[in-house]
């Protein structure tokens, strides 16, 4: 597995300097199925996360500070910096990561990957890169959308604490910076990129039948989740240094 992962990571720069290896059609298809296909579940999940976090913040502030004045600022910043980045990433891992690994693992055990190779097509060109590009783009795009959705839900929830939407947004605007949003997009894209890499690394090493596919899928999802969480820590640390 590690050897496969290393060979994928070594091949990525080669792909980047050889645009002929880019497959436009597959990329578009992947963007549609993986990215747009995850839109609903991510929107729904982050919407609820926004509601929950606003109520939680208000409760804690009321307890600790006896004032809810800081709720818009704090919840908006938390949403932009972490919540609306990590939740879509983890959902993407479980949805896209599982489906990609299962697909690639099945292709592997039914010799489809060998068939690709024998037809003169680099399996990475066909299976990894279109999905890698699609997931990177979709990761960033879905992060942006989920930030917006979560913020809107937070705005709606804050009405219960007597914050009108313009008031909320004005207070949130003091805390949010455009660099926060840019950092969130970078994070989202990075997490998006991890998913196909891990799925391919595990899928290409799949052995055995249906059980092997199941086992590989589980391993891949667990590894991708851990990767996302560890990278989240690393990126947050890096961004805090800037």
């Amino acid at each position, binding site marked *: 597995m590690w050897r496969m992962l290393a060979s994928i990571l070594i091949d990525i720069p080669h792909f980047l300097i050889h645009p002929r290896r880019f497959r436009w059609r597959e990329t578009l298809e992947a963007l549609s199925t993986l990215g747009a296909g995850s839109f609903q579940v991510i929107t729904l999940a982050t919407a609820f996360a926004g509601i929950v976090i606003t109520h939680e913040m208000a409760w804690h502030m009321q307890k600790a500070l006896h004032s809810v004045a800081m709720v818009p600022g704090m919840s908006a910043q938390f949403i932009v910096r972490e919540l609306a980045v990590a939740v879509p990433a983890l959902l993407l891992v479980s949805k896209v990561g599982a489906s990609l690994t299962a697909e690639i693992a099945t*292709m592997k055990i*039914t*010799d489809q990957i060998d*068939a690709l190779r*024998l037809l003169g097509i680099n399996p990475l060109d066909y299976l990894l890169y279109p999905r890698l590009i699609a997931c990177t783009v979709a990761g960033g795009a879905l992060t942006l959308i989920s930030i917006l959705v979560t913020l809107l839900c937070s705005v709606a929830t804050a009405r219960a604490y007597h914050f009108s939407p313009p008031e909320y947004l004005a207070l949130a605007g003091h805390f949010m910076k455009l660099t926060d949003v840019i950092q969130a997009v970078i994070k989202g894209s990075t997490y998006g990129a991890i998913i196909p890499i891990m799925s391919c690394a595990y899928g290409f090493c799949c052995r055995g039948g249906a059980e092997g596919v199941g086992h590989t899928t589980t391993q891949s999802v667990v590894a991708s989740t851990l990767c996302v969480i560890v990278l989240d820590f690393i990126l947050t640390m890096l961004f805090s240094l800037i």
Partner: protein
Amino acid sequence: MSIIFSGISTAFGTKQVLKDINFEVSTMTFLLGKSGAGKSVTLKHIMGQIPIQQGSITLDGSILSPQSRSLCGMVFQQPALFDSMNIFDNIAFGLKTGNKKERVLELLHHVDLDPSIVTKMPHDLSYGMQKRVSIARTLAPNPRYLLFDEPTTGLDPLATRLISDLIMHVANTCHVTCLVVSHDIGSALRIANHILFLDDCRIVASGDPKTIQLSTNPLVQAFLGRHAVCSDSFVN
């Protein structure tokens, strides 16, 4: 126009798989042997899936290279069709240029399939049909050599016969040299013009079907005996 194995030896760790293998692939060569005798390893050497450790393989007089490898096509034991694509896309996948539609219909004709199936998905077809599509897909880039990895394993005797006839038909109409790795001595005796027996890392018997039938090698005898029983029951 042939593939020549000279002095090929392969070992996985301490386990010897092939030891000093020398043979030449002629028009229709069958490579027979017990399971795990190293038959598939010879195919994987040609396709570059397992690197050659010792000896050499020459293709049309020159050492095998990634370029010359493109002259070979391989049909897997499983149909290995891309299940996200329909039949047309599957067959046309290996085509780079030219009139794809015409070529696909021509290939479907070669493997004796109805042109109406092109819009179907692989899982809509029977196993035998999938196998034919898989042969058509392999033929699409115009290979000069066709390698078959156990094409008839797991098929009923009727389907086995159909597939072996198809291999024969394809070899004749498309003018390709075939190397078939199989357990199926019946098909071998029927269509091969050269049969090789692999056992204990070496080639233990080789020759045309008639020579093989006269071989005194215990393994060949065992294969033939089983075939005799099979063919008898089949005939009866």
